[in-house]
Structure formats: structure tokens, C-alpha cells
């Protein structure tokens, strides 16, 4: 035994679960590209106010008669039909996009983990009912319902105290996306909780008298995290795309500086000022691609056996 101890001390310590995943992730070129794109979006969102040449609300180009100008030295990506600087709004749009993605997925993760966790841990009839409930949300035409709710909610709030909340419309969209995007997370959380509920280390924890809350939070949840993180990464991209589509159809927040709003206002002028549409479109594409690749890379990194 002394020998056993000595050899283990001499050998370099094996890396932890997260570090091992990172080693695998680093070798995945597509995943790294995704991470790069996502980092770029985050950095842009953080430094937008410092690097943007114009305020996102600056319409002065309109007064100078310089709306719908193609890219030049002053307006790097041109101006749009409202006289906004396309490049500046592109940078600021990253903030809105991330706010939507993170906000919606925070809500979705909370609901999903709670519902899925209860279903998986409790089992039986509770499980059956909660999963049917989740399935309901997976089959109904979510996007269509969101459009209707955004529109109708906009009417309901007129004349109430809620009208004074800034960016209420954007908040509504975020909350709605969160409330409709939770079922995949719930299903995964349920599967993981079900698997881990009967794991021996959970039984071992019960055996020493660990209270149920600790078992769920300390023993089960951390082990369920990798699979959930993949879904959250995918969901952030999905939520950003959904918000853009809602805005593109004209149901977005007119006060928000988002890529979808730019697309909505400039689509009619596609023929004369295509740059005003292509720029936010390209930004959206890069963001969605980034999150998709990141999720893909994470799947490989967390489940090396699934790799092909």
C-alpha cells in the first residue's frame, strides 16, 4: 500500500472533469470557431459604447441628406433609410441580442430544471403529468403564439402602470421566449435526474443523512450540468433568432436597438440600401452560427463516446 501511495504521488495528477472536457474541446476546430464567434459578440456588446462612431439614436445623417448612403469613410457600413449609422447600430445590437439570449435562457433554465428535476426525482404520476405538460409546449406552434401574445399584450397594457416600464415590449418578448423554450431543458433535466437519482453516490449521501435539498443541489445538479449547458448554448442562439424574427415582422420593441428592428425598418429599402439589411443579417448569422458550433463542440467535449 505504501508503494501504491508513493506511485500515485509521483505521477502527475489527472485533470478534473471540466479540464478534461476543455482539453477535448480545444481539439475541436468547429467548437473553437464557435467559441471565437461567441466571444466576439460578447466583446462587441461590452465595448460598443466606446468604439461605436455614432450614438445608436443619432439620425443626423437624415438632416444632412445622407440617409441610405453606401459605406464610406465616415459611415463604415453606410447609413440606413432613417439616417442611422449602420455600423453603430450593429455594435449596439449585440447588447440587445445577448440580453435577449441570456435573459430568455435564464428563465427557461430555471423553469426547465425545476420542472424536469421534480419530474425526474419524484417519478410516478407527477412525472407523467409534468412531461405531458412539457410535450404540450413542444408541439404547439410556439412562434405563432408568441406573435399573438406580444401583439395582444401590447393592447392590454395601454393605460395601466405597466405602460411606464421602459422597453416593456422587449421584456415581454424575453419573458415569453423563456416561458416557451423550457421544455427541451426540462426533458433533459428529467432524464439526468432520473439517472442520477439511483446513482450509488446519491444513495451513499442518503445513507449518511444528507437532507434532500443538499442531495438535489450538491450531488445531482452538478452532475447534470454538462448536458444542460449544451442545451442552454443552443437555446441562446435560438432565442436571439426568435427575437429577430418577431422584430422583423414588426412586433418588436420600436425603442430597442436590435438587429431585428434594423431588418424590419430597412427591408422595404432592400433594393436601394442592401447594406442596411445585410449588416444586421450577417451579425445575426454569425451569432447563431457561433452558438450552434459552440453547442456542438460542447456535446463532443462532454460525451467523448458519442464522437464520430
Amino acid at each position, binding site marked *: 500500500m505504501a508503494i501504491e501511495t508513493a506511485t500515485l504521488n509521483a505521477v502527475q495528477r489527472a485533470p478534473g472533469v471540466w479540464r478534461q472536457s476543455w482539453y477535448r474541446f480545444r481539439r475541436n476546430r468547429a467548437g473553437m470557431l464557435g467559441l471565437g464567434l461567441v466571444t466576439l459578440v460578447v466583446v462587441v456588446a461590452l465595448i460598443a459604447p466606446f468604439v461605436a462612431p455614432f450614438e445608436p439614436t443619432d439620425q443626423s445623417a437624415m438632416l444632412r441628406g445622407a440617409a441610405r448612403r453606401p459605406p464610406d469613410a465616415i459611415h463604415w457600413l453606410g447609413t440606413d433609410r432613417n439616417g442611422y449609422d449602420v455600423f453603430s447600430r450593429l455594435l449596439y445590437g449585440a447588447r440587445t441580442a445577448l440580453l435577449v439570449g441570456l435573459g430568455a435562457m435564464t428563465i427557461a433554465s430555471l423553469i426547465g430544471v425545476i420542472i424536469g428535476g421534480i419530474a425526474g426525482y419524484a417519478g410516478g404520476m407527477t412525472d407523467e403529468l409534468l412531461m405531458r405538460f412539457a410535450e404540450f409546449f413542444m408541439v404547439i406552434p410556439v412562434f*405563432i*403564439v408568441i406573435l399573438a401574445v406580444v401583439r395582444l399584450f401590447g393592447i392590454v397594457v395601454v393605460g395601466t402602470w405597466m405602460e411606464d416600464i421602459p422597453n416593456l415590449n422587449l421584456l415581454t418578448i424575453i419573458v415569453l421566449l423563456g416561458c416557451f423554450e423550457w421544455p427541451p431543458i426540462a426533458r433533459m433535466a428529467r432524464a439526468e435526474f432520473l439517472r442520477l437519482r439511483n446513482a450509488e453516490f446519491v444513495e451513499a449521501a442518503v445513507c449518511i443523512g444528507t437532507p434532500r435539498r443538499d442531495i438535489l443541489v450538491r450531488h445531482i445538479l452538478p452532475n447534470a450540468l454538462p448536458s444542460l449547458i449544451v442545451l442552454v448554448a443552443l437555446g441562446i442562439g435560438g432565442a436571439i433568432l426568435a427575437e429577430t424574427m418577431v422584430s422583423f*415582422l414588426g412586433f418588436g420593441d420600436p425603442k430597442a436597438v436590435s438587429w431585428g428592428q434594423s431588418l424590419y425598418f430597412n427591408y422595404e429599402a*432592400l433594393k436601394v440600401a*442592401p447594406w442596411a439589411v445585410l449588416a444586421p*443579417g450577417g451579425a445575426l448569422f454569425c451569432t*447563431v452560427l457561433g452558438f450552434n458550433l459552440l453547442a456542438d463542440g460542447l456535446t463532443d467535449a462532454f460525451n467523448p463516446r458519442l464522437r464520430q
Partner: protein
Amino acid sequence: MGTARYITRRLIFAVCLIWGVSVILFAMINAIGNPIEILLAERPGITDEIIESVTKYYGLDGSVTDRYFTWLWAIVRLDFGTSIIYNLPVSEMLVIYGMETLKIQIPGIVIALFVSVMISVLAATRQYSKVDFGVIAGAMVGHSLPGFLLGIILILIFSYWLGILPSYGAYSTRNPVMGSEVIDGLWHMVLPVSMLVFFNTATLTLLLRSSLVDVLRQDFITAARASGLPERRVVFGHALRNAFIPVLTYLGILFGLMLGTAPVTETVFTWPGLGALYIMAIQQLDYPLIMGATMIITVMLVTATLLTDIAYVVIDPRIRLG
């Protein structure tokens, strides 16, 4: 549990689902109060009496529950009421616009299926080759490129810059292309269908390629090869059939996704389909039309899901029913 029993259960669930959506929708629309009031409020010369009589005309008086059951009973008889804005029977409008939606959605999926099978076979039989990596990369990019952006790019290139394809509508208003209405219709379909095919192909290829790679690795394929079957028979006869199962189950989801985002697709191409109709209806608060369009979209979606569920168990006997 037998297959028949399983199917019955799914059917019951599907009906419950549609009913659930109808309740939510009805509750939501009633939350805004009387739509007639909101619609007519800003117009000049509208008195309370007019609002009252119009409300009565559209059957919007009476208690919420009464109205719900009246509406539900009408729906069951396929009577969706009359559109407030267009003053046409909603059921008629749904059929006309619905056909336009299916006209681009169905070719969009069918063509994509063929294309993705070809591409996937090409990639999977040359695993880890440059072709394979190219296909994976292309599919991943295509899958992440939002359909409506692709639509915009297609319009920009083929309508505005090259000027060869129409950018909006399903028919020409004045001179049909080549003097034939059929060709004119097909000509208008080219861009929207291309866009749908592109997106669907990318998604299906991602799925089918990895599924095919998986199957090609299995022992029964090696056995088939060893028995001297030509490679073409091995891939198309044995491997593809097995690799297709996950794809088939995904078709329903894909169709649902396409239908759900039809408002965006149809807005980009100004296509007179259900999605565009739906947008119009919620913009103008055309209450019977909102209800009707949502119900139809839900029914189509639920049916697609149901069909995939059934196809799944019919095709793959190994699936445990539960």
C-alpha cells in the same frame, strides 16, 4: 402495449392538445376586451350604438364561457365565422391561403429529402475525407443561416441584381410569365422553394450523414459487403433504410418548424399564404381570422407530429412503447 393502443393514446393526446390551444387562444383574445371597440374607437362618427350592434353582429356579446362553447361548436362544424376586415368566410380564406402555404412547404421538404440523401451518401461513404468535411461544414453553416436571411439574399441576387426571378407574390398581376398561368405560378415558386430546400437540406443532411455513418459501421453492413453485394446495393438498400428512421421522425418536427415560421418566410416573399394571413390578422385584430388561422396551423402541426409518432413505431419494431 400494442401498436393500435399506442396510436389511440397519441390520438387522444393530439385532440387534447388542439383543445388546449383553443382555450389558451380564446382566453388571450378575450383578455384584451371587445376587439370591435378597439378597432372602431379611433374612427370618426362611431357611436356606442354602432359598436353595440357590430359587436352583436359578430356574436361578441354574452359571457365568455357562452361564447367559447358557441365558438367551439361552430369550429367542430368547420364554421370559423366571418373575417371582420375582409368580410369573407374564414374557412374559405383558410383553404385558399393554406393551399398557397403547402404549395411551397411540401416541395420544400420533398426536394430537400432527395438532395440530402444524395449529399449524405456522398459524405458518409467517404468518411473523414475532404468531401465529408466540406459537407459537414456546409450543412452546419446552412443550418445556422436563418431562412429569412437566405431569402433576402436570394431576392437581392436573383430579383434585384440579375432581374430574372420575381421577388414577391405567387402570381404576376398583369402579364403572366410566358403567357401561361401554370408556368407563371411555378416561376414565382422558385425563390421561396429554393430557400426552404436550402434550409431543410442543411438540417436533414446533418442528421442523415451522422446516422448513415453510424449504420455503415454496424456488423450487418459488413456482412452484406462480405456476401458480395455491390456497394451501391449495400448503401442504398441496407444502410439507407436503417439510417432513415431518425430522419423520418425529424420530418414532422421540421414541418412544424417550417409551418411555425411561415409568417417570416411569407413576409419576406410577400407570399399569400397562411403565415402572411396570420400576420395581417393579428395586426388588424381580425378576431375570427386569428382564431381560425391558429387553429388550422395547430391542427396541421399536431397532425404532422402524430404521423411521425405513428410512422416511428410502425417502421421500427424495436421501439419500446410507453
